[in-house]
């Protein structure tokens, strides 16, 4: 009863790759430990209150989003920046291509941004002869490998130093270098030239601050500052859900973001950027654009329950704590967003028919919701989406057998006598050899259904000859 639409062969391939399994499990495990060390009650006693407040602020921002978008826009423009509204990926790319032509720009450097991954910006730009270079080390590696990020905050998590050595030799023409410190130096050297030569710096945004017209970026390497300091033009591409009401609210969000993502009380660089450089300032970009991207977000907003998935601040904690992500990794998810948050937003962006299996690929363990810094109720949303898939499949006449199974099940569960009888019949078929040993397989015709899937990786208990209710009757008769 494997879900027929899911890429099981790919799952098995990932599960069988012991090196990759170790890499995923240990990297996410370390991130879990680091997070825990920075949110323990003795170091951050108000952690739960901060989460409460962060969730409440995101809720207020999302539910009054039109107001904060306009406030943001007028504050950006009052300081000489420009806001560009984009309905979709195409409009964002089109604007950037036009801007690059106007500015006679060839080289663009980029700060890691899930939003630009979402809209495939680099590919768009490349098609127009523009070179867009990723500058976060992990993203740089991913770009050279022509791959996509494996993890929201650790994009190259799946690659070893040896993979990186091969990649650098092949793509950069450098001598094979397997020491990560030296590999980092190579990247520093290559990218330093790019930073100094770039015409336009492109970033995402961790937050957009409505009362300030500011873009907030957090990075560790300094590439974010490079891209927003050296080029003449800074363009931030951000989903409309990134709004927070006030600069002062950053005191809440910044305390949570770094801790949840990488176990840092603050990431190394937190940039609060409000418009182009001012007349009295020594340096910085002369032009400042913010692309406000819809790309399906306004559609998500219409769903009162599921709109909370737009609270996400992309910390990646739900990935690290998800036992499913930790088994299948990032590339078995159908879209750029992986893990529990990907499970929840991908079907909403792409349509549930795109990957109907996705909401079912969860044990509903709830670890994600427990660590989400903005308190998104991810398991609840996963359940909602399951219900939607079932409804849609019912309309299309798909999954007939499963539906029939649950119809029969429901009918039986409301008829205790027949339920008991069915159990007795089952125990005749699955009685085992009488020595209490569990079963390796099941006889035909049960071997075609869920029991086959069960016994593909586990043994099955033999059904006891008497159920609890039968034993209970004997017990009560004896005690009387």
């Amino acid at each position, binding site marked *: 009863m494997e879900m027929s639409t899911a890429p099981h062969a790919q799952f098995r391939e990932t599960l069988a790759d012991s090196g990759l399994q170790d890499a995923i499990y240990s990297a996410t495990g370390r991130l879990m430990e680091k997070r825990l060390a920075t949110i323990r009650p003795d170091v951050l006693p108000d952690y739960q209150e901060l989460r409460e407040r962060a969730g409440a602020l995101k809720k207020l921002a999302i539910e009054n989003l039109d107001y904060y978008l306009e406030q943001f826009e007028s504050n950006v423009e009052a300081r000489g920046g420009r806001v560009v509204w984009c309905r979709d990926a195409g409009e964002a790319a089109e604007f950037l291509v036009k801007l690059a032509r106007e500015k006679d720009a060839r080289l663009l450097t980029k700060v890691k941004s899930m939003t630009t991954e979402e809209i495939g910006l680099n590919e768009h730009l490349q098609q127009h002869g523009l070179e867009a270079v990723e500058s976060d080390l992990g993203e740089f590696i991913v770009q050279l490998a022509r791959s996509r990020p494996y993890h929201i905050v650790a994009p190259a998590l799946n690659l070893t130093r040896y993979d990186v050595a091969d990649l650098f030799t092949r793509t950069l023409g450098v001598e094979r270098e397997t020491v990560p410190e030296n590999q980092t130096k190579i990247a520093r050297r290559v990218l330093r030239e790019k930073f100094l030569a770039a015409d336009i710096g492109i970033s995402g945004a961790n937050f957009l601050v409505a009362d300030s017209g500011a873009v907030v970026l957090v990075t560790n390497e300094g590439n974010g500052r490079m891209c927003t300091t050296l080029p003449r033009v800074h363009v931030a591409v951000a989903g409309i859900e990134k709004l927070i009401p006030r600069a002062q609210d950053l005191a809440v969000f910044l305390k949570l973001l770094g801790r949840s993502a990488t176990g840092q009380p603050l990431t190394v660089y937190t940039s609060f950027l409000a418009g182009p450089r001012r007349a009295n300032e020594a340096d910085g970009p002369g032009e400042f654009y913010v692309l406000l991207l819809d790309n399906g977000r306004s559609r998500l907003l219409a769903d009162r329950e599921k709109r909370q998935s737009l609270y996400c601040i992309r910390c990646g904690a739900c990935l690290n704590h998800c036992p499913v992500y930790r088994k299948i990794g990032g590339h078995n998810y159908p879209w750029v967003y992986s893990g529990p948050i990907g499970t929840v937003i991908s079907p909403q962006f792409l349509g549930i028919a795109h990957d109907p299996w996705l909401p079912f690929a969860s044990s509903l363990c709830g*670890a994600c919701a427990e660590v989400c810094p903005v308190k998104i109720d991810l398991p609840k949303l996963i359940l909602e989406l399951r219900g939607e898939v079932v409804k849609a499949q019912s309309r299309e006449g798909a999954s007939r057998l499963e539906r029939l199974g649950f119809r029969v099940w429901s009918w039986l569960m409301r008829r205790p006598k027949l339920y008991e009888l069915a*159990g007795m019949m089952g125990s005749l078929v699955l009685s085992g050899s009488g020595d209490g040993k569990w079963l390796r397989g099941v006889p035909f015709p049960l071997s075609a259904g869920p029991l086959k899937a069960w016994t593909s990786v586990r043994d099955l208990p033999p059904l006891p000859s008497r159920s609890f209710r039968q034993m209970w009757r004997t017990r009560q008769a004896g005690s009387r």
Partner: protein
Amino acid sequence: MPARVSLFVTCIVDQLFPEVGLAAADVLERIGYTVDFPEKQTCCGQPAFNTGYRDEAREVACHCLEVLAGADYVVVPSGSCASMITHHYDELFARDPARLEAVRRLKPRVWEFSKFLLEVAGVEDVGARYDGVVTFHDSCHGLRELGIKEGPRRLLGRVQGLTLREMDIPEECCGFGGTFSVKFPSISGGMSRTKIESIVKTGADAVVGVDASCLLQLRGALSRDGLPIRALHLAQVLAAH
């Protein structure tokens, strides 16, 4: 007159692990309760609810509500099924005011087994004896929806002869997840192996939990791997003496 509790044993215990239900009854009787078993009970509806079949889940939940309506206390040897009633029935009956009212009346009387012992009966030492080393698995819904963490450990701590040795990942999911286990067997199986490695490292001869479904998953994988580690419900350990 001693208080009366009604056992809601869950369909898994009824059909697969009757010894767990009997053990729970033994413990409750030993500490002075009169135990009954509402015979019309079947399932709480969770399998359908968690698979997206809300209508079917609701039908079965209605039946469950009726069966349990008259109970003073309902004791459930499963965090997951207890939580289905106390945390998810509201949502299931959001548009059915009469049943919602029935849910509100029932909820405060529904207790997961270990919570009942500690918070209602106020008993920590049930007079059990179990000679061996055990490790404890935190079942997800019990842990995260009902806050069951220290309670079972306190109960195990009072069992004569028992040594509790914690594994390094007690809170990680065993991989069961209801129909997830058969829709995604390779992932589910992989999760159980990670858990088992952690169990094996403790050197325990049994893994103890408060949810029969996790024990089904863990024991199925232990058995497949030929590992002689038992998977026991807390009630079975507390009933031993």
